[in-house]
């Protein structure tokens, strides 16, 4: 089991009111699954993704990542997980604006301590895989939204992590670009990667193998779908 969440709560205190962004979430995800987490805006999807990606800690509950209790890991171990085990694709791309596409894709490899030659080779390969061979030295501001999202995917893949966390990777894109991104994710899943996709779009969600519906921080439905 790659991911094992048990009774996860995430509570934000705003003055005297409490927001239960996640309310007793229990979720297990196996290796090689393609899971879509679906829910309306404000239902807690991004909160869940941040916890899954070890970017945030739950208020209470137990999270085991690849069998290790995340609450017991130190900062360096968490950094290593984010670096080597998980690839992030953010809702808003989160590329570094001053770096070129190539340099952005190199980043995880840099923190993994790879040599310059290896990094450049690997980053080029990744950008080629997402169809951006012609845009290596463009800065994010010189790329279209779809191209930026593909750079973000190339970056998520560059350190070859077994798990991809993608938060609304198609949210900012037109249908055609969105379709391209989904094709890339499906291909990755075929190659054995575990994909966790967050979306509010049921048409997108349907292309995954399993849909987890979330509403007001609670899992309301967990179903196998489609192909």
């Amino acid at each position, binding site marked *: 089991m790659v991911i094992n969440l048990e009774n996860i709560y995430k509570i934000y205190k705003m003055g005297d009111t409490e927001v239960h962004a996640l309310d007793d979430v229990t979720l297990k995800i196996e290796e090689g699954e393609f899971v879509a987490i679906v829910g309306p805006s404000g239902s807690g999807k991004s909160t869940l993704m941040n916890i899954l990606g070890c970017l945030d800690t739950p208020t209470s509950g137990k999270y085991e990542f690849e069998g290790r209790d995340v609450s017991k890991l130190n900062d360096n171990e968490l950094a290593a997980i984010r670096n*080597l085990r998980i690839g992030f694709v953010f809702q808003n791309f989160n590329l570094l604006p001053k770096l070129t596409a190539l340099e952005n894709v190199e980043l995880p490899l840099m923190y993994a301590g790879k040599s310059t030659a290896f990094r450049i080779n690997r980053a080029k390969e990744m950008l080629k895989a997402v169809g951006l061979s012609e845009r290596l030295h463009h800065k994010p501001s010189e790329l279209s939204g779809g191209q930026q999202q593909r750079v973000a995917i190339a970056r998520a893949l560059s350190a070859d992590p077994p798990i991809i966390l993608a938060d609304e990777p198609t949210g900012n894109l037109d249908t055609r670009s969105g379709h391209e991104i989904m094709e890339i994710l499906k291909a990755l899943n075929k190659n054995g990667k575990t994909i966790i996709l967050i979306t509010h779009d049921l048409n997108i969600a349907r292309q995954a193998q399993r849909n987890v519906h979330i509403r007001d921080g609670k899992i309301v439905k967990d179903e196998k779908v489609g192909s």
Partner: protein
Amino acid sequence: MDILQTLKLAFRGIIDNKLRSFLTMLGIIIGVTSVIALVSIGQGTTSKVTEQIQSMGSNLLTVNIMGRGANTTLSYDQAMEFSSSPYISGVAPIISENVTVKHGNKNSQVQLQGVNADLLTVRNYSMSEGRFFTPVDVSMRQKVAVLGSQIASDLFGFVDPVGQEIKIKGYNFKVIGILKTSSSMMGSTDEQVFIPITVAERILQTRGVRTIYIQAASKDAVSPAMSEISSKLDKIYRVNSEDENYAYRIFDQSAMLDTINETSKTLTMMLGGIAAISLLVGGIGIMNIMLVSVTERTREIGIRKALGARKRDVLNQFLIESLVLSSTGGIIGVAVGYFLSWGLGRVLNMSTKTTLPVVLIAFSFSLLVGVFFGIYPANKASNLKPIDALRYE
């Protein structure tokens, strides 16, 4: 991430903000420059003063006789008795008076100095032409004269004075030599005329000396020589205690040298200290800019952390950026400071001396400032929680 990569990153951060980086560095540049320039001036002055004092003669003691009652001078023979002491290597008593010296139709007001042969070594004078007196000149009362360089050219112009005659108080003197121009804290010889002391006694009709230059045999001999001189003079003038000694003064050149060295060292330290404060202010400038930079780049930090940057990587990135800022400023400051000291020496004729230790200290101080004032912002950056940094707008 390796150090080379981090360095690259730091340089990039600095180049991305050229003007701001330069203004930040300016504080360090000014600090290092002023430390180096001011300390160079201080050290230059110290060594110049030392050199000047030493040029007056090594281990020099100056005895001034005020006398007691009617007994206001010391005879030449009494003065020469000091030379029997093992602690004393040279005794040069002086009789001096202002006279008019004539050559042809030119005449000049000069200070006439009746001296003996020892004077040349005791006062560390050197000849530019001819020779100085020999003991025989003194004992045989030869009417020979040695001229200061200014007097020589005043009286003779372009003619070679050696071998010519000058007239003092109606007597003819043959010029046998000319002193090299010299100026020290004890005045210049340039406008003085020297004759044998035995001759001076006669033509000035005085029998006593008021000033005696004495050279101690070595640095260690200075203080025994001094006590020997005072005990002798105490006897002559019947001085009972140090407190009521108005009869004579002994002036120790090495003691003065020590005092001056002490003082100028303190002064140099003070100058350096004041300049170091500006370095400190420069450091605060670095801290300020680094804090702004951390805030501005919060999202960048969040993204880097999400991609696997460890605390240490982020800490290094910002710390090295601060170090690169301060060391670049330090290097520029060293160059400017060195050039400024050199320029002050050349253009304003100030004596400056830039030594390696000062350069090293100023530069390492700038590095220290970089680390010290960089550590807080860098630490702040590395401790950001990834999620908070990512959410930052």
